[in-house]
């Protein structure tokens, strides 16, 4: 067998074994009562009611609600982050004035602002939307800002000297050079936006996946709780995979020469 094929076989074997071991250990922890079944549901308990639980309107509608808030907030995040990032990257004074605050905002736990957002916007769509956008826009902005900063100034000088108008410089030089960074920013933001929509719903209100998880956890119903958590994990993985594929496709031309 060739070396590469052999290694691939080992890799798949290790991966399959690890996933199975994880499920078996999880099952055994519940079966042997290491954690009381009041608090944990085993894989064999979660798998059968997976479909029926999701089809209940109580669950189904909330999942769709979370997805709609997430989609709206993510679209807004990408747009706002790009615009702010372009502004901060283009105007050096603006950047030097705001950069340290952006870095502090990036590093603080955004959760401390959930109470501020919900008291300001009230319960419902808008506080979740604004909170998630606020949390997501910071990595997006930072990525775009540094990308604009790192554009080779010779490209701009060159296109200027060839008679490009400022608008043309924007469309022909600046925008194409920030697209890889935009996608990287979007990849970081998409996790933040999804997680923070759910966090906002966990904190207060009766909407969305966050409320569902909170509701089942506080009522000691581990089976539907684990159904919701597994579903959310799958949704998170699908969304993240989608953006990674988009990134690969759209930056295929961007061959690193180093």
């Amino acid at each position: 067998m060739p070396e590469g094929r052999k290694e691939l076989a080992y890799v798949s074997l290790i991966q399959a074994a690890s996933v199975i071991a994880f499920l078996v250990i999880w099952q055994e922890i519940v079966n042997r009562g290491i954690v009381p079944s009041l608090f944990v549901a085993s894989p064999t308990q979660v798998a059968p009611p997976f479909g029926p639980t999701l089809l209940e309107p109580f669950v189904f509608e909330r999942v769709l609600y979370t997805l709609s808030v997430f989609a709206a907030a993510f679209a807004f995040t990408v747009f706002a982050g790009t615009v702010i990032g372009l502004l901060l990257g283009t105007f050096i004074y603006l950047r030097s004035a705001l950069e340290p605050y952006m870095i502090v905002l990036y590093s603080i736990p955004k959760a401390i602002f959930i109470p501020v957002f919900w008291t300001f916007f009230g319960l419902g769509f808008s506080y979740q939307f604004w909170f998630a956008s606020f949390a997501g826009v910071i990595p997006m902005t930072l990525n775009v800002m540094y990308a604009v900063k790192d554009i080779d100034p010779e490209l701009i000088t060159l296109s200027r000297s060839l008679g490009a108008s400022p608008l043309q410089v924007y469309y022909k030089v600046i925008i194409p050079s920030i697209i890889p960074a935009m996608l990287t920013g979007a990849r970081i933001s998409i996790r933040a936006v999804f997680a923070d929509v759910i966090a906002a719903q966990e904190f207060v209100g009766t909407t969305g996946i966050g409320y569902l998880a909170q509701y089942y956890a506080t009522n000691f119903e581990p089976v539907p709780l684990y159904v919701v958590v597994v579903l959310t994990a799958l949704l998170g993985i699908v969304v993240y995979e989608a953006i990674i594929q988009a990134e690969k496709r759209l930056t295929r031309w961007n061959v690193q020469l180093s």
Partner: protein
Amino acid sequence: MNLKAFGFQALVLGLLLTVWQLLPMEGIVSPQILSPLYTTLINFPKIFARNGLIPGGLIPQLLTTLEELGVAFVMSIAVSIVLGFLFGYFKVLGRSYEPLIYLVYAVPGSIYYPVLFLTLGLGVQSKIAMGFLFGVFPPLINILSGFRKINGIYISMARSMGSSNVQLFTKVVVPSLAPYIMAGIRLALIFTYIGVILGEVIASKGGLGWAISIANYNFDAPLMYDYIIVVVLLAVAFLVAITAVERRVFSYA
């Protein structure tokens, strides 16, 4: 330029604080929602009151948060370095587990919390687990990408000069990885703090995040903003501390 930038930054801070004072004072935003800057600052001594809204005042909450953060941070660093070296050194293991790590990393972190507090309770354990889950992946991914960027020429060169495996490890691998490990420590600190505070805000029995929630439930806006200021200042202190450590460690660079 540096002094100029500093001036601009001070200007932005001044502007922010002015807006914070003016918006509620002029009635554009209700003071119940955004308590004016002056009221918030005047209220600051109350944060230490032992028999106020927050039992024990600031100090026990601060200690709870620091305890959770400390344990979660040390765990994240230890686990990510051990796993990082294991996966980096044994290529087959790395190739097997890296995709799985990315899959788990893609799960939105906040969904873990209801599971954690149901299993581990509302005490410090569930927050430590939350901080660990937030903090372990960023440094691990960072160390793994560091392994991929080790210059192969250094390794062949050390080998051809007759270095042993141990020497290769201590003289080439560890020094090349040092920047990635240091950046990983920074990420672990930031993200464990984010996870710990998120858990405290959503449901807990103590800590800075819990104090923010309690002040919010009781419509005590000035107290809530005081605690928010404490959390932000703590984050700034962490950033300053870790930057100072980085400067020391990389003083040769």
